[in-house]
């Protein structure tokens, strides 16, 4: 789980004290696996997926229901199969994928890079989120262009920004940054950059260098 600790002068946790001296250690834990019943249509959805995809328990690492949204954490080598079932099964029918987006969790060793796919079923007016984690050292994922052609540019953007490599993509090149750009800007270890501002002899450091509340 995402157990993150931050040290420093600023920030409070637990208490309402925001003086900056209340808590010197902060830990944040992301939502753990949810237990049934999930509520709403989520139970039906999980049942339907389990029926159509017998290897459900092996392929789905965990199911998270948080803030009225359903997230399926999927093993990467099963991603394509699960996605295909989600798209094609009449009771599921997630015919639209709203792209893919990366999130970088440097503290989750071995699962640093997450790819997040929001799916939409227009037939049933339902949404679900697929999430896959890959290690930074081996950032490979299967491309889902074959299922949803519109993921082409989204996968290129995620490659550009996070360095996740989508195997099977017909032309995985940078899309927003220049072709010869070094590094992947949205990773957490990539600095924001910027120029220090000088004002009346004093210098205000660039945004990522400033003292900040955590």
């Amino acid at each position, binding site marked *: 789980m995402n157990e993150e600790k931050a040290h420093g002068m600023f920030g409070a946790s637990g208490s309402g004290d925001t003086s900056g001296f209340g808590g010197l250690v902060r830990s944040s834990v992301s939502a753990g696996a949810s237990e049934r019943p999930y509520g709403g249509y989520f139970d039906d959805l999980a049942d339907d997926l389990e029926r159509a995809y017998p290897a459900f328990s092996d392929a789905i690492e965990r199911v998270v229901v948080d803030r*009225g949204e359903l997230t399926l954490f999927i093993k990467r080598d099963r991603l394509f199969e699960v996605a295909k079932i989600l798209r094609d099964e009449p009771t599921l029918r997630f015919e639209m994928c709203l792209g893919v987006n990366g*999130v970088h969790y440097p503290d989750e060793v071995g699962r640093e890079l997450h790819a997040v796919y929001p799916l939409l079923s227009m037939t049933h007016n339902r*949404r679900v989120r697929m999430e896959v984690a890959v290690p930074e050292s081996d950032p490979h994922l299967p491309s889902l262009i074959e299922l949803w052609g519109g993921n082409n540019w989204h996968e290129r953007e995620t490659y550009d920004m996070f360095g996740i490599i989508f195997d099977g993509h017909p032309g995985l090149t940078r899309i927003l940054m220049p072709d010869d750009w070094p590094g992947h*800007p949205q990773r957490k270890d990539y600095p924001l950059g910027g120029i220090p501002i000088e004002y009346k002899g004093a210098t205000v450091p660039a945004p990522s260098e400033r003292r900040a509340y955590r």
Partner: protein
Amino acid sequence: MSTTDSYASSRETTEGRVYSVTGGDWDSMVTEIGATKEERVVVNMGPQHPSTHGVLRLVLELEGETVTEARSGIGYLHTGIEKNAEYRTWTQGVTFVTRMDYLAPLFNEAAYCLGVEKLLGITNDVPERASVIRVMMMEFNRISSHMVALGTGALELGALSPMIFAFREREKVLDIFEMISGLRMNMAYIRPGGVAQDLPENAVSKIRETVKELRHNFKDNAKMLIGNSIWIKRTKDIGYLDLAGCITLGITGPVLRSTGMPWDLRKTEPYSGYENYNFDVVTTDTCDVYGRFLIRMQELEQSLRIIEQACDKLDGLQGAPVMVSDKKIAWPSQLSVGTDGMGNSLNHIREIMGESMESLIHHFKLVTEGFRVPAGQVYSAVESPRGETGVHLVSDGGTRPYRLHFREPSFNNLQSISAMCEGSFIADVVAAVASIDPVMGGVDR
């Protein structure tokens, strides 16, 4: 090429002969190309081109006037807003996201704020008056955005007058924005928990007048274009993309509705109380540029209907709050629009500077540090003028977004250029691009 202009020249490359054309030298280029046996020409249209809606670059492979391959190059307006927002508080995020799709700033703000509110778990605490104002502002924004789409779209196809009319109407909408928020674009007006400030006095009656005016003036463009045989020849059966194509490419908005699919998030997943308004989802079944044009024209009237209903609701909500009551989230400074734009209200300044030390501390802490958002992730979406604007927000429990990602409809829809344009004439590429209505600020973010 027989020219001394160093910018208008030709040179050999590994990909074939490359010609740079700067205008006025077409004849010599045509002569030179005519002399070669090569029939296939690759033309780079943009990124600086009057009909590409900003800095869009189209790479077109031509055989004669027919486009055999069309690819688009983007990224010329990438500003790193998503990265920047990770270093700013949740409230400051509004100021950043409003600059993404700069023709629909209020939709970016609304999608973002709905996401933050969902993360905070205060979706149901947002006061009704704030939601009504949001809806009204968004619908005005839809009008101003559609006006640019129609005006520039017509302009690019050679029709000047519709552009004049469209911008005349857009100006009226921007005046409303200025009256309410103090700014004409990028207003950062919708804030987590509500809106930045209440409507000024007499705003509703001014809005009602404007609605009347707009409804009357929209007829000018309708008369000019609907049924116009030249317009129909340039747009009918152009940029064809059917439902299957739209679904696989993830296309939403007017392009999807031009296939006859009545998909509109305001109806299917109502937010901000859209379920309480009467309006129709406009569709056509022609799958072409003309159909998309008709949809935008008719959506104007639907937006006016919503605004009128919002005005009625606002009359009944006089004096109601426009920000959540939780003082740990609500922006402390009471803003007001003065003669020189938006600023802190003088009453608030008097309170924090002269009357209450606690108010000052509270103000300072919230403005500099911001509020904490419980860890987790959400996806929230609104129906922008171009389709589904989705926001994926991740919080680690801190005062700043851990990750903010916009699923921009322009970015996604632009992928359909190849499907719409290959096989058509080069002149129709312009019509197809205009019908997608991409805004490069949103595409590149």
